[in-house]
């Protein structure tokens, strides 16, 4: 809490919006000339949910955006402020490069810890479901693991949020067969799916705030983090050079004079390949 305000942190990642971009395994990010950098689309839902929780609590909450990445990621943090976040911090250091998801989660958690010390303990962390480049989809869970707090992934609804001592959050978790309801004590980490909300576009007021905002950049030396746990050397997962997938065989056009004839031929093909 920061005074009587719930302290919410939203973790975002800047990714390339071009899907044809080359994946840079060393930096664990997509790099391409001309590829437009933007907030990971999944994280937009996390930002929006943070803002909605603040609205729900009649502004008795503050929403802070946190990102790990190169200096350029600052622009995405400004965008997060334009979309309603109250402030933002960037974790950036050449030594962070090559971190796998567990190491990235470790650094984010160290950032959260520092935010807590500076402003007041963090109560709730929101993450997007996954990133659109390296798609690991586990950063939220792993932040919670390093922090040793409860977490839930695939969150489609925040049913209830109650600050207090300890506060609690009740969420709906989207499963393959329906929805689970879980209650967790705060602090907690939620990974959010797209269905949860419809992100708004930046307001004029937000845009002005984003231009004026001061975004702190924290280096490794600013965090109480062990260098052995980060970067390529500190990561347990090694990423190799990417390559294009083999071309799909077939590409066969099903010809026929009538829909019936085409349907018959298609069915025959599917039977030949033992699919039906």
């Amino acid at each position, binding site marked *: 809490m920061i005074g009587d305000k719930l302290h919410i942190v939203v973790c975002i990642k800047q990714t390339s919006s071009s899907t044809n971009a080359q*994946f840079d*395994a060393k930096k664990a990010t997509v790099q391409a000339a001309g590829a437009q950098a933007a907030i990971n689309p999944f994280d937009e839902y996390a930002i929006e949910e943070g803002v909605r929780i603040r609205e729900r609590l009649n502004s008795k909450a503050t929403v802070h955006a946190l990102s790990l990445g190169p200096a350029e990621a600052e622009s995405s943090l400004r965008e997060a402020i334009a979309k309603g976040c109250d402030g933002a911090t960037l974790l950036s250091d050449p030594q962070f490069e090559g971190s*796998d*998801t*567990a190491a990235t989660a470790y650094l984010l958690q160290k950032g959260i810890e520092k935010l807590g010390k500076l402003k007041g303990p963090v109560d709730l962390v929101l993450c997007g479901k996954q990133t*659109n*480049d390296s*798609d*690991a*989809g586990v*950063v939220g*869970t*792993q932040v919670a*693991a390093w922090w040793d*707090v*409860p*977490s*839930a*992934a*695939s969150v489609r609804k925040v049913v209830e949020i109650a600050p207090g001592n300890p506060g609690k959050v009740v969420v709906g978790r*989207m*499963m*393959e*067969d329906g*929805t*689970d*309801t*879980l*209650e*967790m004590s705060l602090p*907690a980490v939620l990974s959010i*799916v*797209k269905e949860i909300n419809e992100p708004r576009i930046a307001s004029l007021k937000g845009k002005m705030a984003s231009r004026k905002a001061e975004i702190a950049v924290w280096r490794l030396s600013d965090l109480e983090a062990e260098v052995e746990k980060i970067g390529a050397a500190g990561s*347990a*997962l*090694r*990423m190799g*050079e*990417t*390559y*294009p*997938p083999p071309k*799909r065989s*077939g*590409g*066969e*056009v*099903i010809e026929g004079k009538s*829909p*019936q004839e085409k*349907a*018959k031929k*298609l*069915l025959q*093909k*599917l*039977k030949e*390949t033992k*699919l*039906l």
Partner: protein
Amino acid sequence: MPSDIWCVAEQRRGTFLPTIQELLSIGKKLARELQEKLTVITIGSGVESAAREFGKYGAERVLVVDHPALAHYTDEGHARALAEVVRKEDPRALLFPCSANGRSWAGRCAVLLEAGLGTDVTELTIDPQSKTLKMVRPCCGASLLMPLSCRTRFPQMAAVRPGAFPRAEIQAGKTPEVRKIDLDPSRWKLRTQFKGFEEDHSQVKDIAQAEIIVSGGYGVGGADGFSLLEELAKLLGGAVGASRRAVDLGWIPYRHQVGLTGRTIKPRLYIACGISGQIQHLAGMSQSDVIVAINKDSQAPLMKLCNYAVEGDLFELLPALIEEIKKSKG
């Protein structure tokens, strides 16, 4: 010395998800190469007798953690339970299903065990020298493949994309060693409580488990059009998928959405009806074994990428196809 391949069996309300059969088929191959044991581990409440069944899919050993506090999956509880067993038993590799919960479970365990974790893995082999996992996963919306490996430290962990491997077949006459492991989660002060479950009442199968998916896009024209797709899907024992455009228009719920911001699936057969095949859609389905595209426009991207392209109006082709299938079934 670390040894053995472990497959994590995910259960929902006492029923095992079929992904365990897929893990057992690839797990067995790896275990054979290593000449090590194939083990199933499961965590739940009242699951012991059902877990014995894994012998018939090739498991040589079944480890069961059975406790009422672990009846329902939570990140905290299940990760801690699994990590405790792993620390005691020292397996070489852990294979998880990369389902909604499996992904999260694997992620949390990887931190607790300081282990390397590959997610969304679609290829899996053993490096003969180091006896470590060699993994491949699609990335960048499936436009690229990325090899992954773990630092030589054990366990090595892979979360395997559902459908990436065939299901293990039933084999006769194998009785696995079943061992119950005692843990006491009531002492862990877990902070997550399971409050309930609400079933999704749509009659159609979930896409994650379907071997055949009939998927619709903007060309389907509305919620009514999807009932045609549903009819075909039911006839084929499959499920219904959708493009984001169809979902955003409210024609079908989000859980059916395939693609970058939807779900990733790898069925044996994907029949795309009135879907153009934008890169974000391809991200969710391009790993399907066989793709059929039905589209009015022969120049649509998916018509070029699929195995079988059928040009035409889906409102004519689908009824004809349904008719033909009914005929052939007699």
